[in-house]
């Protein structure tokens, strides 16, 4: 295994989560919706998992809905709100495509972002103020942490503006990239709907969590057996739910020490790269960024070429999001931030996580410096 610096794409599962889920992949196979004793055991495990998740997120267990991931949560929030309430949706231009494409799909309004990639609060206020009665804004979706550059949105300010200028609107946050680095109890109380993805915090892929606050209603995306209080039908992914809850519990319990440890690693990574190379832009100031993300732009090279050389050196990183064919797309986030193509062409995201070591940083710095020098020759 090489040097893995792509934790924002997916972070390894927590050992505790794998251990906790294994019985439910094996002998604890009952459908929790059943009425017999065996089913009730699975049901009990899910109920306990829900309690655990609610405690780490700062909400009531009844507000927790298990989903298939972050994308489902974002779709359920935006499409579900507009289908239920009419009107339209609003989001900033640097959102994940899971949000952006939903808002575009319902003919919503895209708000500008500032030069660190978080929502332009004045533009948000303007858009909310300009909404008409014929086309009211019924959902505002603002990501808590940007998935590409790692910038942290001042959610308190966002909530204040949304409550003041669009009191009827639901406030949704894609908090997928926040879970590892931000105490969720600070975010959850500010919003009506929230979406998480389990594999970003050490849970399994194909699992997500939504919070839908009591009294807030969305048209469900998936109809069927009425699981999750009719908010999300489909047989429970029991093992996935157990693992998700366990991973979130571990993440929450270790968050403060991980923030300190990973921030020191990340800062050293960026410092050593910028000391060794000219023409490096640290895309977002560190104090406005989560500790797990280093995002830099190199002048005079293309990141497809850089990623290939890093791959050859067994250093795994990423740039912008990839399209269906696997090709790199120009980053809509950097474009929205107003970063020139001469910089954004050389963008590199290095994201750290719970398994990142000092040795990883040493290896990565050496590989990056060597690759950049080769490409600039």
């Amino acid at each position, binding site marked *: 295994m090489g040097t893995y610096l792509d934790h924002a794409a997916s972070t390894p599962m927590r050992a505790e989560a794998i251990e906790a889920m294994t019985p439910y992949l094996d002998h604890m196979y009952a459908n929790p919706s059943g009425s017999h004793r065996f089913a009730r055991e699975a049901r009990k495990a899910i109920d306990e998992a829900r309690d655990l998740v609610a405690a780490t997120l700062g909400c009531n267990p009844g507000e927790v809905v298990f989903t298939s991931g972050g994308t489902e949560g974002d779709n359920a929030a935006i499409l579900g709100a507009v289908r239920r309430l009419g009107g339209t949706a609003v989001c900033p231009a640097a959102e994940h495509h899971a949000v952006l494409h939903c808002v575009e799909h319902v003919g919503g309004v895209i708000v500008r972002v500032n030069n660190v990639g978080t929502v332009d609060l004045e533009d948000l206020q303007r858009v909310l103020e300009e909404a008409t009665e014929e086309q009211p804004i019924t959902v505002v979706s603002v990501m808590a942490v940007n998935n590409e550059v790692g910038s942290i949105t001042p959610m308190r300010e966002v909530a204040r503006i949304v409550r003041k200028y669009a009191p009827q609107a639901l406030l949704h946050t894609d908090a997928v990239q926040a879970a590892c680095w931000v105490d969720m109890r600070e975010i959850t109380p500010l919003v009506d709907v929230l979406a998480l993805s389990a594999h970003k915090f050490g849970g399994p892929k194909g699992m997500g969590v939504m919070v839908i606050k009591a009294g807030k209603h969305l048209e469900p995306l998936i109809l069927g057996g009425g699981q999750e209080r009719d908010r999300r039908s489909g047989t429970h992914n029991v093992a996935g739910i157990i693992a998700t809850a366990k991973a979130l519990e571990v993440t929450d319990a270790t968050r403060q020490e991980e923030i300190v440890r990973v921030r020191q690693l990340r800062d050293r990574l960026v410092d050593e790269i910028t000391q060794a190379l000219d023409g490096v832009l640290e895309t977002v100031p560190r104090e406005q960024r989560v500790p797990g993300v280093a995002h830099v732009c190199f002048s005079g090279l293309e990141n*497809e*070429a850089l990623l*290939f050389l890093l791959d050859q050196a067994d250093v795994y990183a990423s740039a912008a999001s990839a399209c269906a*064919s*696997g*090709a790199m797309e120009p980053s809509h986030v950097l474009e929205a931030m107003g970063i020139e193509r001469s910089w954004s062409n050389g963008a590199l995201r290095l994201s750290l996580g719970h398994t990142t070591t000092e040795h990883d940083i040493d290896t990565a710095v050496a590989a990056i410096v060597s690759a950049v020098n080769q*490409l600039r020759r």
Partner: protein
Amino acid sequence: MKVLVAMSGGVDSSVAAAELQAAGHEVVGVTMRLWGGESDTGCCSVSDVDDARRVAQQLGIDHLVFNFSDDFNEHVVAPYVQAHVDGLTPNPCIECNRHLKFDRLSERARLLGFDAVATGHHARIERDDEGVMRLARGADDAKDQSYVVHMLDQAELAYTMFPVGHLTKAQVRERAIELGLRTATKPDSQDVCFISKTGGRETFLGNRIPFRKAVVVNEDGTPAGKIDALELVTIGQRKGLGIPGGGPKQYVVEVDTPNARVVIGEEGSLYRQSVDVDQVIWSDAGDAERLKVTNDVLVQSSAHGAAIPATVEILTPRSLRIHWSEPQRRIAPGQSIVLYNTINSFVLAGGIACPDSAKASLQ
């Protein structure tokens, strides 16, 4: 050697990768993502990328995707559209080879430390007795693609490999079947990759440029009809001109873009004694000198056209005039013209057909 093989998802490039690997090279496959728009026919759609990746997995080689869609738009699609506005008949596949496969991709490959770029084209690269790299025709006469890769000069030939050039198409398919490659029976791509079968060229261009109405006139200037889209008319075209049938067959013999006028005439009016060629690239600079002594060549002016005897008059280092041994039908301006040696074995030079010059027209 460390070789980057361009894998389109077709059988030729699949086998090219396999051949290189069997020869002991260190092989990495790459699929270029060129076109983001709608397409259902050509190479490099998502399903073709899937095929290329699956073949690479089967062979156990790395597979990458490079997004060159901006370059493709700039160097292939936009000039293709502009050429129609200018009354030319472009060959976008040749421009893609010129600007993407053997420029953008090979430049990237050099940067990444590869020793060569390979493709699945049916052509061969051989070194002659004097040490000159020669772009020779592929082993399969019917599938030879030296015409579409004619723009390779000595430096590029030295950096390029065509691993299936020595095989016939049937042998390529046999190889693919032997290796169990999923692309073994995939049909050849025929069409321009960015133009969908359903919409065709008309829809593609119509979405990008306003069509100009034009009058159709006889050679004596008398009106013969009207058409809605001057940009869709090509020299030699016979159909879709809105003229009544009967009498001798009528062909487009001139597209007069500035005056929005299409001239039609009988087949005889299409014949020319010569054609001028510009943007000429010599396979080897020495050939230009040699041709000043003995100037006999064979000339091919379409992908699967015959090689026609002619002599060549070199006008400038980048332009020349072809004098046909027998009058030939006019070549639509914008088409690529490729010169081969007199025994029709390798490429000497290639360029783009010019509109009729005063001197080149039938005298």
